[in-house]
């Protein structure tokens, strides 16, 4: 049941197409930062990206190898569970379709893992079909560490905590295992259009 809040009128933005804003979200020009701990500042010399777990054999790329893969530049809207959305953000990275090409697996779930110990879980299916990238550039600049650089997962169709910052790899899993925020009561799947913010939504 929804109650009217006495005296509240709100500030709708005339310049924003409401069809692009999921329920309960507001559009910001800013790019807020949310992280549970300090920002890691790792060296690119030791950076690598790994796909492991339930796979025929683990696949690892160094930063240089990774940069040599075919890249895509995409423009997407992003939605953070703390209510802000940012429209038309421009990212460059490697599609997960490219990275998963040639990986043999029967896994249905993925745990993305990051420097600093952060993890998040997703169905493998959500990372395929041109819907997910490992992004290393934002707005034509190298991705800033505060925003997850050198590279972050980008899964714009889910709330942005699923787009793990400082990502270092994917663990392919036979079972779905809650990641960091999912273990603290956030929704397991996190579809902004169904407003799946917290467990039970």
């Amino acid at each position, binding site marked *: 049941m*929804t*109650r*009217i*809040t*006495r*005296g*509240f*009128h*709100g*500030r*709708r933005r005339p310049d924003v197409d409401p069809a692009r804003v999921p*329920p*309960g979200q*507001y559009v910001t020009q*800013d*790019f*807020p*930062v*949310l*992280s*549970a*701990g*300090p*920002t*890691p500042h790792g060296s690119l010399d030791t950076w690598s990206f790994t796909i492991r777990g339930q796979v025929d054999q683990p696949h690892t790329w160094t930063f240089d190898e990774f940069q040599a893969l075919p890249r895509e530049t995409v423009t997407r809207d992003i939605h953070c569970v*703390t*209510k802000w959305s940012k429209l038309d953000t421009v990212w460059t990275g490697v599609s997960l379709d490219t990275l998963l090409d040639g990986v043999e697996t029967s896994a249905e779930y993925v745990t993305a893992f990051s420097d*600093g*110990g952060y993890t998040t879980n997703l169905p493998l299916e959500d990372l395929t079909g041109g819907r997910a990238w490992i992004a290393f550039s934002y707005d034509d600049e190298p991705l800033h560490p*505060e925003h997850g650089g050198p590279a972050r997962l980008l899964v714009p169709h889910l709330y942005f905590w699923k787009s793990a910052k400082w990502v270092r790899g994917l663990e392919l899993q036979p079972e779905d295992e809650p990641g*960091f*925020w999912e273990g*603290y*009561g956030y929704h397991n799947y996190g579809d902004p259009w169904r407003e799946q*913010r*917290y467990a039970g939504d």
Partner: protein
Amino acid sequence: MLELIEQTARTKSIVFDVPGWGRHRAGQHVDVRLTAEDGYQAQRSYSIASAPEDRHIELTVERIDDGEVSPYLADELLAGDEIELRGPIGGYFAWEEAPGMPVFLVGGGSGIVPLRAMLRHHRATDSAVPVRLLYSARSLDDVIYRDELTAADAGDVRLTLTRRQPAGWTGYGRRVDRELVAEVCWPAPERPLVYVCGPTGFVEAVAGALVSLGHEAARIRTERFGPTGGETP
């Protein structure tokens, strides 16, 4: 809503009676949802300023002049009004009484709010865990919960005023940088559990300083509110 308490020129505490509220953990937040007559809704998160032991739920809101929600909460809401709160939410930026390492709280501006809940919880449980707060504000007039934090029984509270210090000020008068963190925090080998909350730039600087002083990243918990750049509180 029961009561509005003016904390600073820009900040008010709002006390709610919430029927059926379960117990929260100090440091958690709620989602506030406001609904206009035509059904339009706006939601924002606010930390719970009260301890789990307190009778009522208190939020403390800093008015952002061009903001959508905070001016409503700070200036429009009247005693007797009802609004929708959802929570408690979050669980990582939360502290519960447990015997163990010292706890170091670092707050900038309105980032004091969840830390104040932790301090009150610490006091309400007669905790023997050493706790210390370092709180950065622009001036004494900008210190939220000033009476409570400067009271004789406030515990180990250190204030730093970054812009203006009153005559005879004996607290710190500079930004929270590496040197100040080194001076006030327990050394890394004592493995304090650290909670840092404030605008993004403040949290980045303090958390970075802690890491450079050898504190384990896993023992530093952060909550960032406010815009990307954010002025130094």
